């Protein structure tokens, strides 16, 4: 069977759904960040697959590289903030970080 664009799109769709599920269901902040990485990588797969199979230009590859870089920057900041949270709360459980009243 020839692997084509559709297969990549299905993989990326599954990754996106898993990432969304992780973000919505996990309480541990690090797991939420991992779910986020899955979403970004799903987008990367889309970009590269479209660029490769859609007969399109190099834009998709460049976009994927940018997304990788920004994901790293964002993860660095997010983890620094998590460390700070840990110093104050002694845990990183998102449901219990709710001192600001609704």
């Amino acid at each position: 069977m020839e692997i084509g664009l559709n297969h990549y799109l299905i993989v990326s769709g599954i990754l996106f759904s898993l990432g969304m599920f992780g973000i919505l269901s996990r309480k541990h902040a690090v797991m939420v960040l991992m779910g986020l990485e899955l979403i970004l990588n799903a987008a990367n797969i889309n970009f590269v697959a479209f660029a490769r199979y859609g007969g399109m230009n190099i834009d998709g590859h460049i976009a994927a590289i940018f997304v990788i870089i920004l994901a790293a920057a964002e993860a660095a900041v997010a983890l620094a903030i998590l460390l700070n949270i840990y110093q104050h709360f002694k845990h990183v459980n998102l449901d219990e970080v709710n001192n600001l009243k609704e």
Partner: protein
Amino acid sequence: MIDITSFTTDLLNSVKLFLPETTLVVTFLAAIFADLLVRRQKHIAGYVALAGFAVTAVFLAQQTGIGTSAFSGLFVIDSFGQFIRFVILISSMLVVIFSFFSDELHHSNTKLGEYYMLIIGMVFGMFLLAGSSNLILIYLAIETMSISSYILTGYTKEAKRATEASLKYVIFGAVSSGVMIYGISILFGLTGTLNLSEINAALAVGTVESVPLLIAGLMILSGFAYKISAVPFHFWTPDVYEGAPVTITALLSVASKAAGFGVLIRFFRVVFTSGNDPGTGDWALVGSIDWHMELAVLAVLTMSIGNLVALWQTNIKRMLAYSSIAHAGYLLMAVAMLNDTAVSSVLIYFFVYMLMNLGAFLIVQVVADKAGTENIDDYSGMGYRNPLIGVALTILLISLTGLPPTAGFIGKLYVFSAVVNAGWLWLAAIGVLNSVVSLYYYAKVIRNMYLRDVESKKSKLAVSPVVLGLILALAALTIVFGLYFSPMINWANSSVQILSGF
């Protein structure tokens, strides 16, 4: 293949057009060095930032009348972007000045260099956002400004609530920008390009399927809606506004919202209207999907939820957070119209909103520093404890409600009339009803200041003359622009040119 000589000429021209942004980067580096070299002076990076912003303003003013694209269509310089950039720049300058007088920042941190640097970085991101006409540049700019603002929100890291606010901000922000980039990837697959005007051209052919287009559009909208804190992406707003240092709250509520609206309008205007008649905002290329209605519903939800929840807030920062959600709702009404009148009304509103909201936040900051409270009930007797601050806050809150003779009235008048002119009477009616609701919670503060606790034995509130001068100047300007508004209107009306970047 691109011809190499024409490419280099384009690049050289682009570098000239990119001067304001280049200045910001230079300012950023200068701030780092100044902070390293001059250790005695705590605010040296702030002074460098102010000087840099002033130079940026000069270069920005020189771009008046230029309408062209730079860097092979990545970036456009047009009057719309210029107006948004001016709003961003003025509000950032004011926020830097506010920061000089903030006890909150001094209390917890010995060093403030990084604080000012991150503000410069954030302004750079917002400048890029105001002019980007390529989806990847939009994503990059949003992340540049977001990452800086995540750190700034938690800058007073000894404060527990600032830490919590930054956590909520980073989680919500990262998820919504992740969803946005997935939407961008789908739109890229549908049209084969990332350039906004080429996407527009691809949509004009009419072969793009409408269901994936709707999904991609909604996903991208979620990224923008998060930045402008529209319902249902508003959950971070009250917590972040309450937890962040007041100066940063002020910056987020004005500058980052202006940048968000700038990119939202540019995206929809360039991508979804037909190229023949761009001034009318006809949403020509969306096929069977009624984006008009979608945005109108979003606007109604945003302003109603913002106003109704603001009614029972006890913390003034939280109250202003919900009020800023409501203001985003009024502006979204105009965005849904998308024609030239609506765009200029958004610009007018932003200029006015900048003055009144920054003024209100400066008073919140002063009261929090000197009286140690952010509770609305503790504003009782404030009109007697410091009469000038009481008068200024009254003017600013009346302006936020949108009553004459303040500038807020002019802003609302233009937004509502743009909506009515487009034939959406029911939408304008809901907007006016919402303004009436908002009067209740703004007036509650005024009532507390003058009618409660009149015989108070509380001490007078001493405020440094510079801060008092700033507060009075902002309050006076809201009155001045409420009475003599034609320069502002003319400037906004001449700033509706939105280029597509080719």
